[in-house]
C-alpha cells in the first residue's frame, strides 16, 4: 500500500492521460491514497475523471481512496464543485469554513458535480434539473459566448450526452460545467463521464463495427447516424454537428482510445480530427465539450 503521486497533469483531457496511465497501478497496488501536492490546476474533465478513479477503486476494493496534501486553492475548488459531497473519496485535509468559496448565484460560473443516475426515470429528472440550472446560470457561465440560440444548442448537447449514460453505459455518471481563464484563454467546458461498458461495449453485438479499431469506432459514432438501440441513432452525431456550428471542440474517450475533434481549427488547412488507439485502459466513456476564445 503506497501513496501515489499525481503529476501536475490535470489541466485538460490531453494532459490527464498521464494520470489515467497510473489508473491500473492505483487499482492493482491498492494504493492507500493519492498525493495531489504537485497539482496546480484541475479542469472539470480531470475533476470528474478523478472521481471515477475513486469510484472504481471503491467498487473494486471496498475502500475509499484518500486524497493527501491537496494544495489549498485546489481543495477550495474541489469543495466548491461538490467533489467530496458524493462520498466517494476521502480527504485528509479540512477546509476551514471561512476559506470556503462563496456560492453566489450571481457569480456562478459553474455547475457543480452532479450524478446522472443509471435508471431512466431518475435520470430524466436529474437531466431536467441540470438543464434548468444551466439555463438559469447561462448568462454568467457563457458570459463571453452568450446568445439564446447558443444556450439552446448547448442544452441539446447536454441532454443528448447525459441520456447516453442511462441508455447505453449500464452505469451512472457525472456532469460538471465551468467557464474559466487558462493561459489567457477563455474556456467553457462541459464534462460528462461514466465508467460503464464504454462505446466499444455498446456495439459489441454489431459485427460490422467489431472489426474497427476503437478510435475509428469513436469517429464513426460522431460522424455517422449509428445506434445500437435507437431507430434514429443520431445523438452523438448531432452533438458533433452542433459543435461544428458553434466552432467548439469535442474530446471523447472510451476504454483505450480517444478522438479529439477541433472544429475551431477547421478553417485552417491542417487536420482537425485526431484519433488515438492503444491508450491506457480506463472503463466507460468520458466527454469534454469545449468552447475557446
Amino acid at each position: 500500500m503506497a501513496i501515489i503521486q499525481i503529476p501536475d497533469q490535470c489541466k485538460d483531457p490531453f494532459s490527464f492521460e498521464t494520470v489515467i496511465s497510473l489508473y491500473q497501478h492505483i487499482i492493482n497496488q491498492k494504493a492507500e491514497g493519492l498525493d495531489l501536492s504537485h497539482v496546480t490546476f484541475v479542469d472539470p474533465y480531470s475533476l470528474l475523471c478523478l472521481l471515477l478513479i475513486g469510484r472504481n477503486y471503491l467498487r473494486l476494493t471496498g475502500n475509499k481512496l484518500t486524497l493527501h496534501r491537496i494544495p489549498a486553492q485546489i481543495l477550495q475548488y474541489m469543495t466548491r464543485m461538490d467533489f467530496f459531497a458524493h462520498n466517494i473519496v476521502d480527504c485528509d485535509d479540512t477546509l476551514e469554513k471561512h476559506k470556503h468559496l462563496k456560492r453566489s448565484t450571481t457569480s456562478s460560473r459553474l455547475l457543480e458535480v452532479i450524478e446522472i443516475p443509471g435508471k431512466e426515470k431518475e435520470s430524466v429528472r436529474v437531466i431536467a434539473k441540470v438543464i434548468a440550472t444551466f439555463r438559469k446560470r447561462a448568462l454568467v457561465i457563457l458570459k463571453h459566448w452568450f446568445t439564446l440560440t447558443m444556450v439552446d444548442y448547448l442544452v441539446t448537447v447536454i441532454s443528448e450526452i447525459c441520456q447516453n449514460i442511462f441508455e447505453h453505459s449500464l452505469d451512472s455518471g457525472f456532469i460538471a460545467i465551468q467557464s474559466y481563464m487558462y493561459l489567457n484563454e477563455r474556456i467553457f467546458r462541459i464534462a460528462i463521464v461514466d465508467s460503464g461498458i464504454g462505446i466499444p461495449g455498446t456495439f459489441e453485438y454489431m459485427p460490422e463495427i467489431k472489426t474497427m479499431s476503437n478510435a475509428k469506432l469513436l469517429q464513426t459514432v460522431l460522424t455517422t447516424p449509428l445506434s445500437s438501440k435507437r431507430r434514429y441513432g443520431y445523438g452523438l452525431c448531432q452533438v458533433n454537428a452542433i459543435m461544428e456550428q458553434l466552432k467548439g471542440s469535442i474530446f471523447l474517450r472510451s476504454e483505450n482510445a480517444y478522438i479529439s475533434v477541433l472544429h475551431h481549427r477547421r478553417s485552417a488547412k491542417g487536420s482537425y480530427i485526431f484519433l488515438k488507439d492503444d491508450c491506457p485502459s480506463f472503463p466507460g466513456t468520458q466527454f469534454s465539450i469545449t468552447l475557446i476564445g
Partner: protein
Amino acid sequence: MVIEIKKLATSVVVTRKSTDLFTRYVGKLLFQKIQEKLKHLAEHEVVIIDFDGIRSVDASFVDECIVPLLELSQTNAFPFYIKLVNITDNVEYIVNQVIGMTHDQKRYIVMTDRLCKNGCHELGSISEMEKDIIEYCVINKQATSADIASFMHVSEAEARDSLLRLYEIRAVRKIHDDTVFQAI
C-alpha cells in the same frame, strides 16, 4: 386542431416549468397525450403543433414524439396533416436532422409556418423539385397537376405523380378532388 405543446408539457412533472423538451421518456409521454387529442380529429384536418414557449428539443424527443406523429399521419385510417408553428432555430435544426434521415425506405416531411434555413417551409428529406412544388402550393394555396406541369416544365403525368407522392407523405393536401392539391 391546435395542440399547444407547452401546455401539454406542463402536465408532465419533469417538464412542468421547462422550456426544453428532451429524452425519449418525455417524447413518449407527450406523444400519448397528443394521440388522445387526435381521437377528436376530423378527416383531412391539419394538426398544428404549436411550439410557442419551447426553446429546444433533442433527437430522442423528436424520435419518440414527432416521428411517430408523422408516421401516424401517413398510416391513419383517414388522412390528417401536421404543421409545426412557432419553432425556434434549435427546434428547426433538430427536427430537420432527425426526420431528414430515411429509415427502412420511410420518408418524412413536415410543414412549418416559417421560411426555414433550407429556404422553404418544410423540413425533412426532400428533393429540389419537391421543394419547388410545395412552395408553389404555399404561395398559391393550391395547385393542379397542370399548374405544376407548366411551372416545372414537365409532363402533366410526371407532375401528378410528384403531387401524389407528396400527398402520400402528407406534405400537400388532397381532399375530395383528385386533381386539386392544397398547401398545408
